[in-house]
C-alpha cells in the first residue's frame, strides 16, 4: 500500500467514503443475489448457456480477474521479488489488488459451475492430474494463500518473509496462467484457442491489464483520499506507464496477427472462427473493443502526453481494461459458435450457433466486478487507518 503524507488525525474514514463503499457493496450484493438464485433454481432456468455453447458470459470475468491477478502479481514482483527500487512504492497496494482480483475471479467461477460444493472434496480426494482445470484450481488456491500471507507480512513490516511468499506466488500464478490457456487450448472440439501464440499472448495480456489496473487504481486512490501523489509514487506510475506502453506494442503485434487470420485463412488454424471475429457478427466487438479500446486509444493517449500525466495514464488504463474484458468475452464465446458438424452438410444446421447473455449472467458479472471495486475501497479505508494508527 502506498504511504501518503498524513493530512488529518481522524481514525474514521469520512462519511462520503463510507457512502461510496456502501453503494458499491449494495450493487455487489444485488449481483450476487442473482448468483444465489441461479444456484438454487439451476442454471437451466436462469443462464443462456446451451448444450452447444456451454460456456457463457460468466467465464469472461473469471478469466479477466484471474489474468488481472496474474498481471498485478507480476508487476508487484518487480519491486518485491526482483528488487527494482522504482516499483517498490507500488508493492503493497498491488499485492492487495492482486488478492482481491483472484478472490473476484474465484467467486465468479464458483457461481458459474453448477455444483461448486463438490469441488473442494473431489478435487482433494479424486484428483485428475491430466486435467488443466484441476491444476488451475489447485494452483490458484495455493496462490491465494501465498498472497494472503505476503500481504499480512507486508502489513506488519516483515518484508523478508513477505518476499519469500511473493516468490512462491509469482511462480504459482505464472503456472496457473499457462494452465488457463492450456485448459482452453486442449478442448478437442474447439480449435479456436489452439493458435501457437496463445501462451505468450495470455501472459502478455495479463501483464498489460496488470499495468492498466495499477495506473487506474493508484490514481483513483489519490482522488478518493483527496491527496497529491508523492514524487516516488509518481515516478513509479510513470515507470509502469512506460512498461504499459511496451506491452501495448506487443499486444498490437498479436492483434495484427489476429486481423491477418481473420482475412487470410492460411494465417490461422481456425479460419471460420477468426472470420466471425474480424468480419462477422463479432466485428464490432473486435474493432471497437479489442483494437480501439484495448490498444489504439491507450497508445494514442500515452503518445500525446508522453506518459507524463497520471490522469491520462489512468484514462488509458480504464480504456485498456474495458477493451481486454471484451477481448476475453470474444475469446470465450466465438470459438464455441462454430457448429460441431459444419462440414457434414447437415440440414437446418445454422452457420453459427448463437449466444446472448441472460439477465442473471449480466448481473452476476456486475456483482463480481463491484465486489472487486468495493474491496478496493474497503482496502483504502482500512489500511490508511492502520497507517494513521501506526504513526
Amino acid at each position: 500500500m502506498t504511504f501518503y503524507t498524513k493530512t488529518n488525525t481522524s481514525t474514521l474514514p469520512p462519511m462520503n467514503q463510507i457512502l461510496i463503499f456502501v453503494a458499491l457493496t449494495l450493487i455487489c450484493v444485488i449481483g450476487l443475489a442473482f448468483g444465489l438464485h441461479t444456484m438454487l433454481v439451476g442454471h437451466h432456468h436462469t443462464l443462456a448457456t446451451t448444450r452447444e455453447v456451454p460456456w457463457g458470459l460468466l467465464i469472461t470475468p473469471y478469466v479477466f480477474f484471474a489474468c488481472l491477478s496474474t498481471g498485478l502479481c507480476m508487476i508487484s514482483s518487480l519491486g518485491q521479488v526482483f528488487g527494482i527500487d522504482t516499483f517498490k512504492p507500488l508493492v503493497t497496494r498491488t499485492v492487495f489488488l492482486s488478492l482481491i482480483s483472484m478472490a473476484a475471479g474465484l467467486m465468479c467461477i464458483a457461481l458459474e459451475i453448477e455444483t461448486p460444493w463438490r469441488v473442494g472434496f473431489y478435487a482433494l480426494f479424486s484428483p485428475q492430474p491430466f486435467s488443466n482445470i484441476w491444476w488451475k484450481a489447485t494452483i490458484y488456491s495455493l496462490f491465494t494463500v501465498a498472497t494472503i500471507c505476503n500481504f499480512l507480512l507486508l502489513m506488519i513490516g516483515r518484508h523478508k518473509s513477505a518476499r519469500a511468499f511473493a516468490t512462491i506466488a509469482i511462480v504459482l500464478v505464472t503456472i496457473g496462467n499457462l494452465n488457463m490457456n492450456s485448459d482452453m487450448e486442449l478442448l478437442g472440439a474447439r480449435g479456436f484457442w489452439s493458435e501457437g501464440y496463445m501462451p505468450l499472448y495470455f501472459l502478455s495480456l495479463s501483464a498489460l491489464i496488470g499495468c492498466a489496473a495499477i495506473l487506474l487504481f493508484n490514481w483513483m486512490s489519490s482522488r478518493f483520499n483527496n491527496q497529491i501523489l508523492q514524487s516516488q509514487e509518481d515516478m513509479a506510475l510513470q515507470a509502469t506507464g512506460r512498461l504499459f506502453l511496451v506491452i501495448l506494442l506487443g499486444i498490437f503485434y498479436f492483434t495484427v496477427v489476429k486481423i491477418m487470420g481473420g482475412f487470410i485463412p492460411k494465417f490461422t488454424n481456425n479460419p471460420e472462427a477468426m472470420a466471425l471475429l474480424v468480419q462477422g457478427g463479432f466485428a464490432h466487438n473486435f474493432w471497437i473493443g479489442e483494437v480501439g479500446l484495448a490498444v489504439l486509444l491507450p497508445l494514442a493517449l500515452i503518445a500525446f502526453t508522453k506518459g507524463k500525466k497520471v490522469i491520462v495514464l489512468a484514462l488509458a488504463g480504464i480504456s485498456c481494461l474495458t477493451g481486454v474484458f471484451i477481448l476475453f468475452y470474444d475469446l470465450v464465446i466465438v470459438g464455441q459458435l462454430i457448429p460441431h458438424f459444419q462440414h457434414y452438410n447437415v440440414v437446418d444446421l445454422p452457420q453459427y450457433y448463437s449466444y446472448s447473455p441472460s439477465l442473471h449472467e449480466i448481473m452476476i458479472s456486475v456483482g463480481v466486478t463491484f465486489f472487486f471495486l468495493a474491496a478496493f475501497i474497503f482496502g483504502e479505508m482500512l489500511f490508511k487507518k492502520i497507517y494513521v494508527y501506526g504513526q
Partner: protein
Amino acid sequence: MKGIKLDKLKNEGVETLISKERRQFLRFGLIVTGVFLGGSILSLTSAPKAQGAFRSGKVVPSVGQFPYKPHYTMVIRQGNCIDCELCLEACRSTNSVPAYGYRTIILERRIANAEGEQERAFMPILCNQCNQPSCVRVCPTGATYKDTTNGIVRMNPNKCIGCKTCMAACPYNARYYKEEDRAIDKCNFCIDTKLKESGGKTTACCAVCPAGVRIFGDLTDPETAAYKLIHTPGNVFWVLRPEKDTLPNIFYMDA
C-alpha cells in the same frame, strides 16, 4: 541531421558497471527465465495422452491390438437409416433421458451423388466412446472416465461439479447437463440398463432398430456381427471428425 558515429565512440566496457548492478541484472534475468520455463514445464504436466489411449494409425485397429476386453463398439450402417426415431425413444425410456436432453440423435444430411445430385442421408450420432477421449482428459475430478475393462466412457454423477468443460471438449456434441442428477449425462452403451440385462449383447437403440442400422458388438469377439462387418474385406468405414484424433469406437458405413 547528424547521426551518431558508433565506431568513433569509446568502448565503455563492462568493467565500468558496478558489480552489484550486474549481479542484480543477471539475477533478474535468471529469475524471469526460471519463472517462465518453470511455468511452461509444470503446465505441461497434464499434456500426456489420456491413459488407455490406443494408437494404430488406422481407423479400425488390427486384430489383437484392442486395448480392452470386451472392447465394445458400434457399427452404423448409415444407408439403411429411415429416421423412424425408434432408437431415440428406446434410449429415452430405458435410460430416463429427460425431454430437454438426448443421448443420441439423428441428423439429416444432403450428400452429392456421382451424378452431382443431392441425396438425403440420415446420420445417427451418439457418444463415440473414444479411445482418446477429450472429455475424460479435461475433467478435473474424474467424474467422467474411461472404463478400464470395456473402454466405455462413463459418468460418476456424484463427482460431477458441473463445470461443463467436457461438453465444450466433446467434438460430437454428445453430452448434456441433466438437471435431475445435477451432473452431465451421456450415452454409456446402456451399461447399467439394457446391456446389463442382455448379458453384454445389445443396447436399447440397437435392440429396437427395424432396419439393422445400429450394430453393437465386441471387437475382440469374432462371433459378433460388428466384428464380422468390420473385418470383412471390401467394406469401407469412416469415423466422425477424424481430425480431432480422438480414436472413436463408432464406425460408419454406407449399408
